């Protein structure tokens, strides 16, 4: 935000950053081989549903598109609204690469409809060797990933594990450098 923007009090919503979603496909190989993480077979994309007629239409079309590709790729898609008024499109597929492609199809459909600035994040669910859930969250606004490991208890997260994951994944994934932007998403439905 430039000086002039500050003076003018200008606020436009940031459009999605250049897409680095597919870095997850390559990083997954390392996670599986070296970090003994396995895919939970689920991913989700979360966005703000706008109360306009064309937005509803876009979401319906997009569901059909992903369902359509699902029949041959084996991806199923489901949706749920959370208590904060955000909508989750949940994709289930045992094949991780298909999940990434599916998430990309959903975000592509929303962006194609001109509502790219409404997309919040994509979430990829993993399990570690103790079968505990951990997530990589992709921030569309910034084009970066960050780890999110819920610890037992209300709104507790395992920061140590998250920082270790960041170090372990190294340069294979564009990790969000600012820790104050590692926003948790509680109650991820995947």
């Amino acid at each position, binding site marked *: *935000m430039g000086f002039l923007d*500050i*003076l*003018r*009090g*200008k*606020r*436009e*919503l*940031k*459009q999605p950053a250049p897409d680095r979603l597919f870095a997850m496909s390559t990083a997954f190989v390392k996670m599986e081989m070296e970090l003994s993480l396995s895919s939970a077979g689920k991913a989700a994309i979360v966005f*703000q549903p*706008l*109360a*306009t*007629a*064309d*937005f509803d239409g876009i979401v319906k079309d997009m569901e059909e598109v992903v369902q359509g590709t699902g029949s041959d790729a084996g991806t199923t898609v489901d949706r749920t609204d959370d*208590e*904060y*008024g*955000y909508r989750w499109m949940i994709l289930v597929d045992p094949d991780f690469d298909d999940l990434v492609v599916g998430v990309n199809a959903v975000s592509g459909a929303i*962006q*194609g409809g*001109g*509502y*790219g*600035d*409404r997309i*919040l*994040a994509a979430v990829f669910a993993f399990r570690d060797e103790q079968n505990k859930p951990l997530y990589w969250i992709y*921030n569309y*606004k*910034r084009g970066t990933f960050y780890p999110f490991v819920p610890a037992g208890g*209300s*709104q*507790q997260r395992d920061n140590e594990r998250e920082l270790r994951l960041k170090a372990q994944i190294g340069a294979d994934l564009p990790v969000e450098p*600012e820790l*104050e*932007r590692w*926003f*948790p*998403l*509680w109650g991820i439905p995947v």
Partner: protein
Amino acid sequence: MPRPNSFGKDTGLQVRMALTFFLLGLLYVVFGAVLVAALKSAVPVIIILVGLAALQLFTSDKLALAAMGARVVTPQEAPQLHAMIDRLCVQADLPKPKVAVANTAMPNAFALGRSPKNATVCATTGIMELLTPAELEGVMAHELTHVANRDVMVMTLASFFATIAAYIVQFGFLFGGTSNDDDDGPSAMVLVLVSLVVYFVSFLLMQALSRYREFSADRGAALITGRPSALASALTKISGGMARIPKQDLRAASELQAFFIFPTSIGGLFATHPPMEKRIAALERLESQLQGQAV
């Protein structure tokens, strides 16, 4: 075909804001010239005043929080509020601010801090009880837009010369009569008069600027949440609640009034916030622009 954004432009508001900045700047340039002409030896005084302004900028958030009886809360203490702000921050592309809660029945919320990295947003328990989640989200998005627009910084800098003018007027009244220096006798008198005018005019301009920043923040909140009507509904509820409680807005009290040596009487005449009806009308326009996209 991707559209650039869901809402139209706010050219009128931008023009008015630019004009206000211009007038304020002009006023300060003239005042600065008069200051330099009158006080050739007053450099240390000005340095002290700059220091005071900096101190104000760096400590006002903590002071204001303490004055409000607000407390910074952890995600465990206020999970709903934190989760809501987390999502809004992603959407607004802001780092997470500190989140505070003030334990008072008055429905209000405010933002503090000189930069997004040092920001605090605060909600009262009253507003959290009064509003639905969607409405509260609109209010918090409004506060986050204040953070993103660096409104505390803008208003502090804008009020800096007004502060100096106010000091001079005050000292002029206190000591102007006693210091019978024949050399600068008339110029000191002129300085006090000029300061008085500068103080008054800059006060009016800053109130106008503050109102424009409010419109701007309303607009930003509508952009972030995509729900202008939720904020409009929140404003109606708050204004109903505020009318019963004989106090104006706290953001004004904590951030602006602190700068003024004569805070109360003039403050009532020229509000720092636009009238509620105008804000709601502006939000209604945004909502129809948003719906207008649906063809």
